[in-house]
């Protein structure tokens, strides 16, 4: 049982993952590689998830059943608000990405960037809720476009919320000796997901406001 013997944690600090055995398969390097591969697979899976909503958009638009894709009197939502949402999502992803680059050398800067990214993400959330409250149409009155608009933006917002939670944990773990310092590559990996969410926001913006 020699390998299973607990060794005292090298540092006693809150936030520090305690590696209690010396087994090679739990090395941070292994974890980083797994996070990289896993995140890529997850993003492809998420592409399929959003593809269903874009398919719904184009399919219902082409069918235009009962001429009710855009019910009479429906106005498209304001493009400016949509643009703000996309911009905030891109800014959040960009700030996170910049922070993740700096996590090893300049941890304080990285934390600042993470905080700003979180701020942008939360603002994005708030603006999106504001848009939902001032749509100019009521999905309950029918219509393909209103349904897809609410649905696509809703599931995207849900994923953004989850991403913001994870971002908050990254901020917590970016303290000295936190997990983000032990496994900096995993931190970078999460940036890919943020970029992916921003890309989906951009594509939905083009589709929902201009097509």
């Amino acid at each position, binding site marked *: 049982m020699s390998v299973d013997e*607990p060794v005292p944690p090298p540092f006693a600090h809150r936030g520090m*993952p305690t*590696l209690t055995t010396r087994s090679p*398969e739990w090395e941070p390097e292994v974890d980083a590689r797994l996070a990289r591969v896993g995140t890529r697979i997850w993003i492809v899976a998420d592409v399929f998830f959003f593809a*269903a909503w874009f398919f719904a958009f184009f399919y219902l638009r082409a069918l235009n*059943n009962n001429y009710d894709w855009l019910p009479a009197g429906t106005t498209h939502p304001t493009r400016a608000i949509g643009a703000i949402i996309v911009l905030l999502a891109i800014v959040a992803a960009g700030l996170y990405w910049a922070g993740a680059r700096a996590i090893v050398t300049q941890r304080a800067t990285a934390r600042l960037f993470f905080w700003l990214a979180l701020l942008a993400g939360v603002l994005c959330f708030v603006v999106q809720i504001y848009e939902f409250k001032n749509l100019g149409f009521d999905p309950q009155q*029918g219509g393909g476009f209103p349904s897809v608009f609410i649905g696509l933006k809703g599931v995207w917002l849900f994923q953004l919320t989850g991403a913001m939670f994870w971002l*908050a944990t990254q901020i917590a773990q970016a303290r000295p000796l*936190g997990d983000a310092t032990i496994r900096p590559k995993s931190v970078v990996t999460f940036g890919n997901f943020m970029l992916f969410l921003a890309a989906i926001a951009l594509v939905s913006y083009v589709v929902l406001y201009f097509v």
Partner: protein
Amino acid sequence: MATATLGTGGPTLQASERQMVLPTNLLTGIVLAAVGYYVGVQIGNGFGFNDGLNTGVLLGYTFGSVMFLVGVGFANYPLARLFGWPIAPQSAGDEYRGAWRFLNLSLDHKVIGIQYLVAMLMAMFFGGIGAMLIRTNLLSPDQLVVPPDKYLVLVSMHSVMMIFVASAAIVGPFGNFFVPYMIGTNRMAFPRLEALSFWLVPPAIVILLAAPLFGGFPTGWTGYAPLSEQAGQGFDSYIVGFALIGTALCVSGVNMLTTVISLRAPGMTWTRLPIFVWGVFSASILGTFAAPILASAVIMQGFDRSMNTSFFISSNGGSPYLWENLFWFFGHPEVYIFILPAFGIVMELIPHFARKPLWGYRTAVVGLLGVTLLSWFVWQHHLFVSGIAPALRPFYMFSTEMISIPTGIVFLVAFGTLWRAKISMTVPMLFCLGFLFNFLIGGLSGVFLSDVPSDVTLHGSYFSMAHFHFTIVGGEIFAIVAAIYYWFPKMTGRMLNMTLGKIHFWWMMIAFNLAFMPLFAAGILDMPRRVSTYAPSLQGLNDWVSFWAYLLFASMLLFAVNVIWSWFFNPKVAPADPWHVRSIEWTLPTPLPRRNFERIPTFTSGPYDYGNPSPRPAADLGSEPAPA
């Protein structure tokens, strides 16, 4: 109990991670689930949508499931990260002992495998009872036991339950348990996701079983849209249940794919990967990428039923075709999620019991991957008479018939392996041969259905119902039973009784075939699926079917007796290698040590090197230290 020796092949949770504000265990989970359900219902009903209170039930189920997971302990890791509490990626000990460990969150892939096995067998039992009630009702052409609305509830419960079982019953128990051994690793890539993929299943089953409390739902497992929008709150079980199962499939797939890609031991090259791992791998590809489509589609159903959007309401700009397309774009890969790991089991077991190398290994892999690829391009064969894009039907007919080429490879590989082999007719082998026979019938009947003009008569009839029961029960379930007989000694430390096993095989094989074969005739003779009444002239045929269906169920009860008796009341510990096979898991002692490998093994040859006059061991289990 032998099972108590399992543990710690993955990370375990330390007290600090487990004990937070509340002690997190199954009981906390159940209590929090009830609280979550209540809160969700209150919030949902507070929205005041004119929606038949579906929002309340939907939110209740969702909150209940989330709170259940929180109570079981899934929030501990993210919250520990958030608040900077100590995180233990792994530790040496595990404070839960004995059976209690199997009822609680464990990150050990062996414990998760056992949890999956028991949960799946129980769910299969529920589904089987549904089947028995259905067959009882069909003893007479009029309603015999239940009125037609309850009959549809029964059909829907049986089908959805069995779909839950079929989609996870191989990758869940056997994939999680044996893939780490077969590729030579002590860990899964994402043990928490792996555990999550299991712990999403009990809430899904409970939510599904709760449907009759709200009147059930009449749609079958296909959940076709305008009918589903008519249905009462029972259908909300379908939505949340499938959302949970879809999430489970997806996270299980992410974990499995990453594990196989990244954690193979030295020497475990892609061309040495046991064919079972390839089966799990290809099914995981389908699960990971098809399940999100299902999730999106059921979320649309949820929006339609709660927020009154109109994704599927044709008078309001939606379309039932949208559901049909999305559902089957998931649904066809789904049926290969069932059968690919079953192919894996059969092709894994046949070489071991034929004592011959797997014949045409690379072709077999190409076959599995070919099915994986093709299954994305065939979904509209379920919609040949729907009126969707009639001009595209030749394409879908062709792509569907193309799948018989990679499927035929499975038979070729089995043939090549059996040819001039030294076959031992053990119980697992019997079930594998039974699989070949049943799946042959299932596959050939599939060709009848793939052809558009003949599908016009067969579509939606008992013929198609018999077809997929031959592939799923005769195929997948037979493979699962083979796998249980084969791996049970390694999983639990006990042999199953093989005399009972042989009786079980012949009983099940005969009862299954006599029960389902006549249903092809029923379909050709004008009996649609999912009907509670049928033409009186078909009563004799239906009574015959019901009789043999009861016997089929009885054969499974015999199996259950065998499992329970051997597991809990048989004191004799199984030998480490009862089958004398080369696969690496049998070179390890029984009961399995807590840690999979003291040293990461180095694989030196493939798992099927039979007949080699100077065979190298499949793996070097530790004379040299593992490379880091």
